[in-house]
């Protein structure tokens, strides 16, 4: 097999895997952009989304891609509750507090999920499992293509929502200038809840797509992707969606290369090494940040 062929293959796998990171990172950008809060427990929403989809699928047999919408809606609700109960009271008391709060949330969600579903690894089989589509020289499972398509669709829908709807514009206004937004009459508290909810819905989508692709999942699945998503948005520039996408792809390539050349244990470490090097050179991230 020629090197270009291998390289293209790895790029393709990276693209499909990157969808999960892109959805997570976009959600984080949204939440951080509007509320300026740091929630390390974001990965737990991915996990809950995954379990909701898996459970409903196992109970009812409905096509998991349809359950995706249900899962996203459920997480808008859960996200709104968490925002109102946990993050609203400590808004403004400093980022450290938010970080510590998210540690508490991580404990609760991960172990709560373990209590309900047990902590063994599980997986479900997509109804399209086994169907493959020839793409170039590869035989690609049709699920991967659907996942890429869904991710693109969600991102486009989000883009349109932010650009064309009134709430979307209010969200953008709040993220750019919170005080100014309040002055012109935007209900920033409502915008907070909505942003948080949408961010969580995106995480739920990521979790659902994770499950649908046949990957194994357990209550602890969310923590590493969340931390990596944070690294990605710092690298790509806080609030920048193209930055997040590029950052995600770069990260995926770097990770796989590190695992190959240095050994498996370096896969996680390399993300942080890159992050640290970038931050030492540019303490505000690759593409700078829009006001903190």
């Amino acid at each position, binding site marked *: *097999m020629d090197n270009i062929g*291998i390289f293209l*293959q*790895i790029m393709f*796998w990276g693209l499909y*895997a990157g969808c999960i990171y892109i959805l997570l990172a976009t959600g984080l950008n949204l939440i951080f952009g509007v509320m300026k809060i740091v929630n390390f427990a974001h990965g737990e929403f991915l996990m809950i989304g995954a379990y909701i989809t898996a459970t409903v699928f196992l109970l009812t047999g409905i096509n998991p891609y349809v359950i995706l919408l249900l899962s996203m809606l459920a997480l808008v609700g859960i996200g709104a509750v968490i925002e109102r109960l946990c993050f609203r009271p400590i808004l403004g008391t400093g980022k450290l507090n938010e970080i510590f709060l998210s540690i508490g949330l991580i404990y609760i969600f991960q172990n709560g999920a*373990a209590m309900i579903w*047990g*902590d*063994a*690894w*599980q*997986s479900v*089989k997509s109804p399209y*499992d*086994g169907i*493959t589509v020839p793409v170039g020289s*590869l*035989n*690609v*499972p049709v699920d991967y293509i659907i996942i890429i398509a869904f991710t693109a669709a969600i991102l486009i829908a989000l883009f349109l929502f932010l650009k064309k709807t009134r709430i979307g514009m209010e969200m953008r206004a709040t993220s750019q200038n919170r005080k100014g937004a309040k002055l012109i009459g935007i209900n920033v508290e409502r915008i907070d809840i909505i942003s948080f909810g949408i961010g969580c819905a995106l995480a739920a989508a990521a979790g659902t797509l994770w499950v649908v692709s*046949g*990957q*194994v999942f*357990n209550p*602890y699945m969310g923590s*590493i992707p969340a931390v990596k998503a944070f690294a990605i948005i710092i690298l790509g520039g806080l609030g920048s969606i193209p930055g997040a996408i590029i950052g995600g792809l770069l990260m995926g390539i770097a990770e*796989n*290369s590190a*695992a*190959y050349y240095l*050994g*498996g*244990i*370096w*896969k*996680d470490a390399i993300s942080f090494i890159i992050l640290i090097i970038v931050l030492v050179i540019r303490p505000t991230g690759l593409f700078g940040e829009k006001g903190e």
Partner: protein
Amino acid sequence: MKYQVLFIAALLLVAALIAGCTQQAATQQTTSAPQGVIKVGVIVSQTGPASNVGNNMWQSAQVAADKINANGGVTLKDGSKAQIKLIVGDDESTQAGGQKAATKLITDDKVDILVGGYSSAVTSAYEQTIAEYKVPYIVTGASSPIITHRTDIDTSYIFHHCPTTDTYGQYTTAFIDQVLRSAIAKKSGFAADRPLRLALLYQDTAFGKGVQTAVNNTITKDKLNIQLVSQQSFKMGESDFRTPLTAIKAANPDAVYLAAFPNEGAPIITQARRDIGLNTIFLNVENNDNSQFYKDLGQYGEGAIIESRFSPYTAPAGAVADGQSGYKQAYFTRFGTYPDMMGASTYEGVFIAAKAIGNAGTTDKATVRQALVNLKMPQVIEAMKDQTISFSPDFRESNFDLWMEQLAYNATIGETRPAIVWPDNLKTTDFTLPSWYTAGSA
């Protein structure tokens, strides 16, 4: 002023409570267990990443104790019969937790013997305590040989009843050399002296590296005609293996040996065959022999090999099969799920403890230790060499008769099912290469 007094009073109250509780515990010790009770401490991970296995181990111990007690318990030297009482200690999958659990079981609960232990890192943290208080400990879940090979402390009270990474690395490599090579040579028309091209994909942890070391050492020591064409590692918990698999495919192996957990092994094989086109024989370690693995593999498991000693779907015909199904039934009746192999060895561990105490006739720890050293008891539910459980004189390790199973696809169920193909005294069918198999070219 009054707040200070209140605060100090509160703290002293807490201290008094602690003191009171310990006094109570102490008095419970002195009025002690009623005559005729043998206290067996079971150290497992009830929380932490290993809790799944830990619960299997604890519940299996309970099933074993129930069975022993139902049959009258253990007979001591004076003719009296003693019942087994299990006391569990949670090592929390951490060193500190392990030390706390061991100390509590030994000094507070004053157990007569200990069974259990899973993570080698955790177990090594409290081996000191074992050595100090000289309590016999039958380790049934840890796969690192270090447990009894350590030289910095006295491990004479520790008995290892669980195959180590050395053992399964060695067995699997022997199988590859003796069975796999000739089958491949016959099918592909290779010369008899062509080295077998083996690739290794292992977890970057003590477990995975232990297997890697064992395979390398076996090949060197026994001068086997096997060439390791690729050795790739991945981090524990990984889910995307396509990069290392691509590298392995580029090295043209005849077979790939995986040192992985089931949640990694199933995706590895699936991604290899479905996405990368690496259609070869995959060999797996025994911990993958559980129903979730078969479910996740689906059709892609066809032809794969699992080195095993306890399977949900097969067993060597005869006494072992009967013993295993009896155990699984009893476990299912009590807990509603099925046990795994760490549970099986822990089940046996309790029986070993009971037998040793029975042979010793007393719960005196030094005598019981000697009884364990001299132990020769018939195998319980897992196949042992010579159908006997006994501990090696140098490192007190027991000798499992491991077997290799090959998976065949059953279209009705939609999953593969195993059949034992090696060694000859246990096999039910012959090893065959699947029709789609392609050997690696030289």
